[in-house]
């Protein structure tokens, strides 16, 4: 019954609904790497500081947890918005499939709960808790974060390769098997690719801050340590991510051949497929621009030039991404791979210097690239997400429900208005977030450069906290 819906039947509210979902998710994703991996990076620094009794490391850990406090709060609210949007924008999807794939969210909700509790204890435990107790209470944090990611990725990979149900005569899912619905074919590849991406991205983002400091001449131990710990973590995981990324692409080739066709703009099913680096796909199947490498796509997909790669035209036009969508997925995919390859080179550079000289690289070019690596990794995360979501079109549940069937019946005008409101709110919130981070940075920098105790003006000291409370009570 679903296949009867043609492209002409896409209701007008689909565009605003998709735009709003895309915008809010793209914004939330920026915070996710920090949410998942910043606790781990901070705990590593914290543990190092405790073990070596290193005041600089402990100071870095305290400052990172001050950043974590703000960032986690923003993540909570932008994440809550996403849960609302499932109902506000895609009630048809949750109405029919909620009980099939929702259990992952159940795991995620509790994991997130645990994370919120632990993070509160960690962030507010610095001053009063015994140092060892405080550190130990923080240790389960990365595990809770990984568990939360488990839930979300279970849900998303189910949308890509839905399993664990059969359809009755009315098209409704029955005989639900929760186990199969969680561990779908794409779950494993997606989960590991995602988790490692979070570690790599958070590592490069944090290290990037100190790389920028190094370039401006701040090369003290504080900056070296703040750079080396997160950068080493990211550099170790970068080659791992390269292998995982290669493997997930091949999994997509096997499990979602049409999405793979979109990612590689393959029009007709054939052997000896060429690989296009960038390039645009047109509605008649021709490709313009880009670099064409004969045979390579088949070789990458199956290690042999005579590997048969499914093309977009293997399914009816209504059941596959449009040429424009395929081009978007292809561009996003290529950009992600390109950034990933550069990061591997950067990690190699770091490793070679370390192995030969046992020290950090000294070349300013290394730090210039490292300072950009954080932004580049965030871009790569966004590209990966675009690849998987746009490549799945027109399905919201692959081959089982179209985006157009899931969308709310709210009128397009109302949605556009809401979208505009959300943009204003998000620009304000993220702008303020950035501003607050910059303020914190400059405050700390002033504190570090001024010798002796800083001036105690009412505006310079926080009016909150029992230490200063006495002045107001």
């Amino acid at each position, binding site marked *: 019954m679903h296949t009867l819906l043609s492209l002409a039947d896409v209701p007008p509210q689909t565009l605003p609904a998709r735009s709003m979902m895309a915008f809010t998710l793209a914004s939330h994703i920026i915070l996710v790497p920090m949410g998942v991996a910043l606790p781990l990076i901070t705990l590593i620094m914290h543990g190092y500081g405790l073990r070596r009794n290193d005041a600089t490391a402990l100071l870095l850990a305290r400052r990172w947890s001050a950043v974590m406090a703000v960032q986690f709060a923003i993540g909570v609210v932008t994440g809550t918005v996403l849960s609302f949007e499932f*109902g506000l924008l895609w009630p048809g999807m949750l109405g029919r499939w909620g009980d099939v794939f929702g259990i992952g969210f159940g795991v995620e909700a509790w994991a997130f709960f645990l994370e919120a509790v632990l993070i509160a204890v960690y962030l507010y435990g610095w001053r009063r808790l015994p140092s060892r107790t405080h550190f130990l209470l923080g240790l389960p944090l990365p595990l809770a974060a990984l568990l939360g990611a488990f839930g979300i990725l279970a849900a998303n990979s189910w949308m890509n390769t839905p399993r664990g149900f059969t359809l009755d005569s009315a098209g409704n899912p029955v005989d639900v098997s929760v186990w199969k619905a969680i561990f779908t074919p794409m779950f494993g590849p997606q989960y590991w690719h995602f988790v490692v991406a979070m570690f790599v991205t958070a590592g490069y983002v944090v290290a990037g801050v100190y790389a920028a400091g190094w370039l401006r001449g701040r090369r003290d131990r504080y900056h070296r340590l703040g750079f080396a710990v997160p950068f080493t973590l990211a550099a170790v995981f970068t080659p791992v991510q390269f292998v995982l990324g290669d493997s997930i692409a091949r999994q997509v080739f096997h499990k979602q051949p049409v999405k793979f066709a979109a990612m590689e703009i393959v029009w007709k099913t054939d052997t000896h497929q060429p690989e296009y680096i960038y390039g645009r796909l047109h509605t008649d199947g021709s490709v313009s621009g880009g670099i064409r490498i004969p045979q390579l796509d088949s070789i990458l997909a199956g290690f042999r030039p005579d590997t048969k790669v499914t093309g977009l035209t293997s399914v009816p036009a209504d059941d596959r991404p449009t040429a424009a969508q395929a081009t978007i997925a292809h561009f996003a995919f290529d950009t992600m791979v390109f950034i990933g390859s550069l990061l591997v080179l950067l990690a190699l550079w770091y490793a070679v210097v370390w192995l030969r000289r046992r020290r950090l690289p000294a070349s300013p070019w290394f730090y210039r690239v490292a300072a950009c690596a954080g932004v580049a990794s965030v871009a790569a995360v966004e590209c990966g997400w675009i690849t998987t979501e746009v490549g799945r079109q027109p399905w919201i549940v692959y081959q089982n429900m179209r985006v157009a069937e899931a969308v709310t019946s709210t009128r397009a005008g109302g949605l556009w208005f809401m979208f505009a409101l959300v943009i204003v709110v998000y620009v304000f919130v993220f702008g303020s977030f950035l501003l607050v981070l910059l303020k914190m940075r400059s405050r700390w920098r002033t504190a570090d450069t001024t010798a002796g105790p800083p001036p105690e003006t009412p505006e310079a*000291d926080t009016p909150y906290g029992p230490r200063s409370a006495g002045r107001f009570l």
Partner: protein
Amino acid sequence: MIAGVIAVVLLLAVAAYACGGGTDYGAGFWDLTAGGAERGRRPRWLIDHAMAPVWEVNNVWLIFVLVIMWTGFPVLFQQVFVTMWLPLALAAVGTVLRGAGFALRKPVRRLAGRRLYGALFAVASLLTPFFLGAAAGGVASGRVTSTTTASTDAWANPTSLLFGLLAIAATASLGAVFLAADARRFAAPDLDGYFRRRALGALAALAVLAVITLVVTHGDAPYVWHGLTHGVGLFFVVVAALGTAATGWLLTRPSGAWSRVTAVGTVASAIVAWGMAQRPYLVPTSLTVAEGAGAHTTLRWLGFVTLVALVLVIPAVVLLYWLDTHGELESLTDADLRGAGTGDEG
């Protein structure tokens, strides 16, 4: 059977959110009404300080409510979000502004900046519970239906408006009761009196609104009215009434541990009474628990996941609240983030 169990879990999660999130919204309400920058400085100081360590946890309950709804009762989720589209969308925007306002005003130093973020936090604290209450009113009065056209005005009805106002009054009462007790903890006895007076006022408003709601629901939501005045529903209504009286009595003397217990008991009983009153319906007289329930395997797994999570989460939450109420949790001050002369070490 399992559907009934999950329905109870959902109801309890709603009650937990009403109490945890409610206390939080209430603190925002008193932030809004605390007056100008100088006059409101000390109440706001207490609000920030008492709320900071627990506000995220309080608000994560909402995510849990939504997840149980769409996993356990997908049809209910769909219907609620289609018919109550507008209030829920506004509540979502309110949540963002509130959370961001609260998180951002702490690191901001300049008074103008604090005012801006503080105002956002406070206004959103007022509107968000109102809209969530209005959506709940739509459920109670049976206006949430299987309609296919999304509505923007279904929430403009007497029960929704009253539920929205009840939500504000309940959060204000909870917030003031908790802040009064926190004032003792933070050694500010004058703020104890300040917040107890406000708690009494909010409680009185809550009682009046509750009576009005009973009268209005007689005609506007007859099924729930019948449930509230008979059987188990009536029992919990009586418990809530007794709780209100006990809280009021406790508020006339310096805050101890009990006023929070009775206040939480009052709000939780009221929520449970509403849930019991609309048995066996998820949405009175159009969707029963059995009809709205998802696949049984999923419900059993949801029950199992909840159990396992309770084993993990309850100790953690107890630890957090214990540490918080024993003054073990303090935010980092500038002194902690300063680090004596680390800039010279390199």
